[in-house]
């Protein structure tokens, strides 16, 4: 059988770098003024998973994000690692979208491409951390879904994925078109190469507006998002008494914990 070239799409999101987000110890609020942006960690793994399939088979890899133009350098970075094409969906109207209109918009862009075999997404983003967009896209495009995957292979129209669940590893096989969501740390993302970077600069980024993907502006954005953030509350402070125990008093503490049944010292 002749394998026609596969089309793989990787969804990425640019997020603030968690390592640089810190909590103000006095006000107990989040300070992200120092934070720089990065590609969402799980999305780097999603890109790598797609590139590994491209290493094996004749495939085209498209990276895609719905974001303001500041995301461009991150798309370029993905191409410098091996993606063939980058699409930026950029439109003022999408501002404030929750996961429903985000999934809808991304799905519309995938439909416009027409020939997509596998969509790769991260298991979740580190900033909003919902993990809803991958399954949402699967639902809109009517694809099969393998979420929380750590290893993905492709053969003859089928994707085999190892889903890592709480209590075990499940191996599933689904036909294309398929959506897979990839676990953080599931592989080692490759580095950019200078040659690919130069190629990427020549190729540039494709930018689509909502009109380009036939999504009316009033389908997206804050007003068309079912969920709304109503207020911010301080993190619940379940203060405890924090009784100071001197090193010499540890035996006494242990006795008390044994007496109250918190620690059991069973004979071996």
């Amino acid at each position, binding site marked *: 059988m002749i394998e026609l070239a596969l089309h793989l799409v990787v969804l990425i999101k640019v997020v603030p770098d968690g390592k640089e*987000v*810190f*909590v103000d*110890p006095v006000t*107990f*609020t989040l300070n*992200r003024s120092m934070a720089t942006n990065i590609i969402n960690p799980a999305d780097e793994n999603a890109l790598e998973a797609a590139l590994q399939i491209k290493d094996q088979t004749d495939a085209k890899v498209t990276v895609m994000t719905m974001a303001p133009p500041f995301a461009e350098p991150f798309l370029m970075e993905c191409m410098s690692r091996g993606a063939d094409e980058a699409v930026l969906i950029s439109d003022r109207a999408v501002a404030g979208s*929750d*996961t*429903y*209109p985000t*999934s*809808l918009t991304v799905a*519309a862009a995938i*439909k416009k491409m027409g020939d997509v075999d596998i969509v790769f997404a991260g298991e979740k983003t*580190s900033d909003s*951390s*919902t*993990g*809803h967009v991958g*399954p*949402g896209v*699967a*639902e809109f495009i009517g694809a*099969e*879904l393998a*979420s929380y995957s750590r290893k993905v292979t492709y053969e003859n129209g089928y994707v085999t994925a190892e889903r890592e*669940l*709480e*209590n*075990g*590893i499940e*191996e*599933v096989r689904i*036909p294309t078109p398929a959506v897979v969501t990839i676990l953080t740390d599931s592989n080692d993302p490759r580095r950019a190469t200078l040659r690919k970077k130069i190629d990427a600069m020549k190729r540039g980024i494709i930018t689509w507006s909502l009109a380009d993907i036939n999504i009316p502006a009033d*389908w*997206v954005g804050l007003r*068309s*998002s*079912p*969920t*709304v953030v109503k*207020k911010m*509350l*301080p*993190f619940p402070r*379940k203060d*405890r008494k*924090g*009784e*100071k*125990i001197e*090193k010499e008093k*540890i035996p006494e*503490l*242990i006795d008390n914990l044994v007496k109250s049944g918190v*620690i059991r*010292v*069973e*004979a071996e």
Partner: protein
Amino acid sequence: MAEMKKAEPPKDVSQYKGIMVYLDSFEGKLTRAAHEMIGVGRKMADKVKEPCIGVVIGDKVDSMADDAGKYGCDEVYGFESHDLSMYRSRPFTDILSSMVFEKKPNILIVPGTKNGRDLAARTAVRVQSGLTADCMEIDVEPETDILIARRPDYGDSTMSEIRCEKHRPQMATSRPGTFDLPPYDEKRSFKKEIRKVELKKDQLREEILSFKPKGGEDITVSKVLVSGGLGMGNADGLKLIEQLASIMGGSYGVTRPVADLGWAPRDHQVGQTGKIVRPDLYIAAGISGKPQHIVGMMDSKTVIAVNKDPDAEITRYSDYVINGDLYEILPVFIEELKKRKKMKDKN
């Protein structure tokens, strides 16, 4: 498959009544997370005086349906087929969505296990409604029937209250371990309906090739947990942590940077991006107590902090604080516990 269109709110939200709880299961038993969600659903149902409706899907569901009723559901609907012995994204979404269309619940809560999150995310799109993930608090406002879903923000120093005012059902998930288990009542009466389902071929495109149960311990069920943070200074520090844990018959936990550094497997990470634990005893050694860690352990019954810094944030969340180097303090614990074991052995 969902229609490619915007999420359309229903014209009359007052038609939507009741709290639906999806009950996820493993090997013919409801998961702990499912039980937790029954408790949450029950409380809301009492508050608004509407039924708590359980939905269970599986190979054989009768005893699970009974379990759900005895833990607090008023009505339980079971869907049975040999093809549904394990979670499969498409048919489970088809069934849960059809129940939403049939029963029109005002609220739908789903355990935030991985499969539960997969299902909730797809169902929200299919039924055109809003979903809030990883809630730490789920409640309902009786005057308005509005779901109050609160979740930690990025970095977790604040919580956001998220509402879905116009769309129905209002949906939420919570991480396993977030809530206490509801009481079990052998005599509770409830309505039970089991439906046999015939699935079509195109609903069963996903083939499950194998399932390998994960070895190793599950830190979410340990009664005693000793956790080490960056204060260990190196990977070897974990040996001390493990030694203390094992002498008490418990397991060990770590903070995220410790897992990031590869000093311990990710399965042992406690916190926002790790596991939520609620043991009888939690010993935090060399852990500063950042909110992202605290959110994973703050419901532990007794917390002991061992830290060089007497003002570390962890002290606010601890019942007992021992100021000092963990390499000096933990051996004292180990010695003392050994002594007591020996005494027990002699008796």
